[in-house]
Every structure is written in C-alpha cells, then in structure tokens.
C-alpha cells in the first residue's frame, strides 16, 4: 500500500464516522436503528475499490471497538458488536469489499443503473443477509423471521443506494480513484514499497 492508499483508507473510515452526525431513528424493534451510516461502506467500496474500501471499514470498526462513540447517536464500544447490530456493522466491511470488487470488474461498463444495481446488491441484499444471520444466531430466531425484521430499513436504504451511486458516478467523472490517475501512476514509482 502506498501512503496515498493509507490516507484514502483513513479518510473513508472518517467519512463513515462523520455520517454518525445524522441522528439515528430507533424505529426498529430489534434495537437495530435506521441510520445514515451504511452509506459509508457503499461509498468506500464504490469509490476506493475492494481492498481499500474493505480496509477503510475495518479501520472504522477497530475505532468503534476501541471505545470511540462513532456509531450514530454517539454510541460505540465492544458492546455494539454484541448487540443485534453486530452482524450489520461487521457486514459493512464485507460489502465495501464486495461493492468495490464489482465496481473494479465493471469499471468500463458502469452507468448510473449498473452502479445502483451493484450497490443495492451489496448494501441491501448481502448486508441484510449478513446482519440477519447474526440476529438469528444470537436470539435463536428462524433465519427468515430474522430477515423479515429488515422491513423498516428498506426505504432509507433505497435512498442511500441512489445517493451512493450518484456520488460514485460523479467521482468517477471528476476525480476517479479506482483507475489510477496519471499523477497517481507517476507517484507509484516513488512511493512503492
């Protein structure tokens, strides 16, 4: 990893953290709030690609685990991993990687629709699958019953998907990171390990 990649990783960890400033809606009965924060992994993957995207979310999780209140509503700490949210927040690292991988694969065929599909697949389908699995395990719920508790998230998550896709496409046009820019390519020689 070049220094530049480390800075990007740190930046998107911070962006996910900053999204906690949007207050959470504790609508969901399972104690998993509706939050703006899952926009963070969607952006990280679609802007940074799989490796840096996933690392940025791992870094974010490490900061939360270390006791910083970086989750929406000023919560954090190891307790959040033990709660019903645990699967979702760990899922953030996975879907950032997944979305990033798909973006890299399909980079030259991307348009807004494709971007929306990829991000929805990672940020809704896969994230719910992971989050619900954890819920099912810790509370001995049937898996599909657990999946059903995701209903209240759908509207918000659909909005996040569209927002992430618009931003990702905007960044692709104005300041692409996934495909090395000329300057980045030059720098590689000087800072490569």
């Amino acid at each position: 990893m070049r220094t530049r990649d480390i800075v990007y990783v740190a930046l998107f960890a911070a962006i996910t953290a900053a999204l906690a400033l949007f207050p959470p809606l504790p609508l969901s009965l399972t104690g998993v709030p509706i939050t703006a924060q899952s926009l963070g992994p969607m952006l990280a993957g679609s802007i940074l690609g799989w490796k840096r995207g996933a690392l940025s979310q791992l870094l974010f999780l490490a900061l939360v685990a270390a006791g910083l209140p970086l989750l929406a509503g000023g919560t954090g700490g190891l307790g959040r991993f033990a709660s019903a949210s645990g699967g979702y927040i760990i899922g953030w690292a996975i879907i950032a990687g997944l979305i990033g991988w798909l973006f890299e694969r399909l980079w030259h065929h991307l348009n807004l629709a494709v971007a929306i599909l990829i991000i929805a697949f990672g940020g809704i389908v896969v994230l719910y699958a992971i989050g619900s699995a954890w819920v099912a395990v810790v509370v001995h719920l049937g898996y599909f019953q657990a999946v059903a508790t995701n209903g209240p998230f759908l509207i918000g998550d659909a909005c996040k998907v569209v927002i992430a896709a618009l931003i990702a496409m905007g960044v692709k046009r104005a300041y692409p990171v996934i495909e090395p820019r000329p300057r980045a390519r030059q720098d590689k020689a000087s800072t490569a390990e």
Partner: protein
Amino acid sequence: MTAPLYVDRDSVVHRIPPGYKVLSLVVVGTVVFLIRDWRILTGILVVVAALYLLARIPWRTAVRSIRPGLFMLVFFFVVAGLLTDWLSATLVVLRLAALLLVATAVTLTTRTSAMIESLERALYPLRRVGVNPEKVSLAFSLALRFVPVVARITLEVREAQRVRGMDRNLIAVALPVVIRTLRMADDIADAVDARSFGG
C-alpha cells in the same frame, strides 16, 4: 463527539491489560452460548455485574451505556417467548445480557489509546505477511484527525454553496465534499511522504 466512552477510575479491572480483557470477552462469549442451564447463566450475569462494582463505574454511566441494548433484550424476550417457550426466551436473554455487560465493561475500563496500541501490537507479527505496523498506526491517527475535518469541510462546502444561493441539496453537498476530501487526501499523502514516512 469523539470523546471516548472510557470512564477513568483507578481499579483492578482498569489495570488488566487490554489484550486480556478482549480475550476474556471472547471466552465469555463462547461459554455463554454453550451453557443451557439458566441458573449457571444467572450466576455468570451476577459475577459480571459485580465487575462494574469492582471497576467503580458509576451506575448511571453503566445504565446509560447498556440502555440501547436493554430494549433489544426486552424485544427478544417477547419474540422468543411467543415463538418458542419462555424458558428458552430466558436463556436467550441471559446470554445476551452477559455478553453485552462484559463487552461494555471492557470498553468502559480501557482507554481508547491503550486499546489501539494493543491492537497495533497484536498486528505486529503480521509484519511477515506485509502488514506494516507504522502504516497501521498512521491510518489510525489520520482517521481520528479526519473525523472533525470531514465535518468541517462539509460545513465549509455548505457555506460556500449558501453564499452562492443554494440552501439545501444533499447530493450537491455530498459530491463536492467527497471530491474535496479526496483532493485533500492526495495532498496529505504528499506531505506525509515529504516528512520521511516509512523511514
């Protein structure tokens, strides 16, 4: 908003090295899921609760820290009770409560910086497979520095847009913020390199 959740006290629990605390969390986490006897689970819960006394955590702080989890416990108790039987519902809730209490206790009694340090130390052996500990610690400190910066840049971009007549438009703010922060990241990477990062 980044004030850590840590509660500063001088106690035995505080003095346990972070690594051991996390390890015991993992042990408790595994054990509670293996036990099916509600009496033993209750015993564990009591022991764990005693940790809070030992660590001299003010009880208001303790309650505030576990409150988000409490609602979850109640909900799951009801759901599990209705779907199965009340005994297994009790088991589910006792387990979760124990897990939650231990995890929260670790956070309340361990300094963030100590936690990050021991994490960095834990990653040290991975040097062989290409994980550079200095880079990891740079990533941590930059992330901490960036949280307020991202917030500030968002404010500044919004200010700049308000000055030019745009009052509220999420995408119109978010896109320049992301680009502006990426640009900043590039410059910072240069500055880090220019100060001999990596030896």
